[in-house]
């Protein structure tokens, strides 16, 4: 071990394990995480013989697919060894979080299968639909993605153009992309990996448009993987980061799917085409909120903590210039400017970790309230998850860039891990709601809250402070 770094380790005046446990959510969780690292990340099969940066674009994708498949075989081994069932947390940890990023640096084309496809089936499918589709998805008999964003339409989902017309004679929906701008664009795994997708489209029945609804659509033949008739599919090309994710485009030329393929837990279309409205149009926000909550911890806090670990350790090894003439080069962490580049981001990564635990708990309790038909806290959860996703991804990208600059030319190399971290984090600033749009969604809630305060109404926990400070001018 480097002598200077070893000396630094002797200076700490708190119990490291206590903080580790706190950040993990308890000693038991730390133990579980370490077990996963040992089992998955340290497996030599996952080690790159050639760094992925030196591979061609196509080979990078193939390598991401190879490792993703290997990961799933290993998950099965792990479950057999532990005699445990599948858990969403395990898949999230392995595919969406720190462990996944270690095994497949540039992202995995399977991420959306577990992060969006399955949660949407769970949240928006009827009991029958869940029974049919979830088993297939868990066992990876099918590989899914979630196609919402279009080439010409982003966060504003009411503007989506893809249509789904109901044909009562055949009891089928006809999915169609009327324009180039209506092509689905950007979903992970859509390019050449997934064979099914949940597609968001404008539902038309009995001559009336009922807005955006979700449909399960088969994209590729399960045997040959060839695109099915009417499906125009491919991948969107090289990006700043996340080049293993295999993001794709998708167009429909009057593609027919059975009536049962519309997710009907909330709104329904009956056999004769009668539309039964959802008790609340906000119920479809579930998947989006889930992902935003997951992004705060799985992307923002994770990559920032990685970046700040790298930069802090480096700063205790690297020597540069002189503070006092003649005294030799000090380790660069002695410089106050260097401390200013690092320590606020150590603090920020802990702040994000704490906030993400809080909002994860809130998400779980609001979701169980929704199951009971209680929608009261949904707007608050939506507002706080929007602003946290925006603020944390933007801070993380800024922090990672600051850490990169704190490590000079060495940090500019791809092997430093900063470029990949920056690519993943800046992507998160854009997907699942572009940050400015998310801030504006939160501010809409805040304006309403302000009006309610003025009318003497009691506020929910995250905006309670408005009551206390509303008198002050």
């Amino acid at each position, binding site marked *: 071990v480097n002598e200077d770094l070893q000396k630094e380790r002797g200076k700490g*005046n*708190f119990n490291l394990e*206590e903080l580790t446990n706190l950040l993990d959510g308890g000693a038991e969780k730390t133990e579980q995480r370490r077990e996963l690292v040992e089992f998955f990340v340290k497996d030599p099969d996952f080690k790159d013989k050639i760094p992925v940066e030196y591979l061609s674009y196509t080979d990078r994708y193939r390598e991401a697919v190879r490792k993703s498949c290997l990961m799933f075989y290993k998950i099965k081994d792990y479950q057999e060894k532990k005699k445990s069932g599948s858990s969403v947390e395990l898949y999230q940890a392995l595919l969406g979080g720190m462990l996944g990023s270690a095994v497949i640096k540039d992202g995995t084309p399977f991420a959306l299968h577990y992060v969006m496809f399955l949660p949407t089936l769970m949240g928006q499918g009827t009991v029958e639909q869940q029974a049919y589709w979830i088993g297939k998805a868990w066992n990876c008999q099918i590989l899914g993605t979630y196609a919402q964003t279009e080439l010409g339409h982003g966060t504003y989902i009411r503007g989506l153009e893809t249509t789904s017309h109901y044909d009562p004679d055949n009891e089928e929906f006809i999915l169609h992309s009327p324009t180039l701008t209506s092509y689905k664009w950007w979903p992970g795994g859509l390019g050449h990996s997934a064979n099914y997708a949940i597609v968001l489209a404008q539902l038309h029945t009995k001559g009336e448009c009922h807005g955006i609804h979700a449909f399960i659509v088969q994209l590729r033949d399960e045997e040959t993987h060839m695109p099915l008739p009417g499906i125009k599919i491919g991948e969107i090309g090289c990006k700043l980061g996340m080049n293993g994710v295999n993001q794709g485009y998708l167009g429909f030329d009057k593609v027919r799917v059975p009536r049962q393929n519309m997710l009907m837990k909330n709104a329904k279309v009956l056999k004769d085409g009668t539309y039964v409205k959802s008790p609340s149009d906000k119920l479809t926000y579930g998947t989006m909120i889930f992902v935003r909550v997951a992004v705060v911890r799985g992307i923002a806090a994770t990559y920032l903590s990685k970046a700040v670990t790298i930069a*802090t350790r*480096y700063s205790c090894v690297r020597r540069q210039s002189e503070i006092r003439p003649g005294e030799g080069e000090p380790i660069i962490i002695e410089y106050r400017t260097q401390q200013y580049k690092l320590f606020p981001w150590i603090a920020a990564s802990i702040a994000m970790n704490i906030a993400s635990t809080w909002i994860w708990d809130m998400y779980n309790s609001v979701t169980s309230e929704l199951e009971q038909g209680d929608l009261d806290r949904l707007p608050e959860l939506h507002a706080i998850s929007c602003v946290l996703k925006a603020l944390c991804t933007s801070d993380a990208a800024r922090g990672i860039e600051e850490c990169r600059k704190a490590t000079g030319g060495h940090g500019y190399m791809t092997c430093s891990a900063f470029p990949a971290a920056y690519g993943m984090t800046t992507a998160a600033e854009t997907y699942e709601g572009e940050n400015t749009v998310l801030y*504006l969604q939160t501010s809409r809630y805040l304006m309403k809250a302000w009006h309610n305060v003025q009318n003497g109404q009691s506020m929910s926990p*995250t905006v309670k402070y408005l009551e206390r400070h509303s008198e002050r001018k």
Partner: protein
Amino acid sequence: LPWTNDLPSLVSAYYQTATGLIRDVTEKVDKRVAKGHIPEDVWNYYSNMLVLAAEAHGRAFLVQRFCDILSNKEISPSLRNVLGALCELYAVYWLLKNLGHFLVHSNIRVPDVESIMDWQDSLLQEIRPNAVSLVDAFDIADEILDSPLGAWDGNVYERLFNEAQRSPLNSMPVDESFEKYLKPFLRSNL
């Protein structure tokens, strides 16, 4: 109330600022709409202020959650001290980055700023001895960090040099581009 350099004052300042920004933009929107402007246009007109209000709300939320953890009775005094310093640094750092809003909306006044800046420097100094222990406590395995700069053993230069050896261009002493392009070019007497 006069400003004091402590955590409760920071939390209060964040809430005052968020409240002020939310109140101001809401009043501006309401006034303009009352004058007969189309609400959606007014919304667009003030959207930059609306973003600031939402950011301030989110930041206040993060500061509050960080503070809450300090009152967890299960945390040892030594860890509480370290986390307390980090929490203060987090709040002071973003306060100074957004100083204008705090001067307008909270009880911080211009003469207080110098002492807040001093506070930030003293926090950096206080955290300094624990810096490596803090990132070690993140407990990120070398395989996950995957960076020669941040490995646990700190052998940065050896690892960087080894990484350079993995470049495919280093697999042969002379690359084929020499014969193809460089040699004719060097002999072309331009």
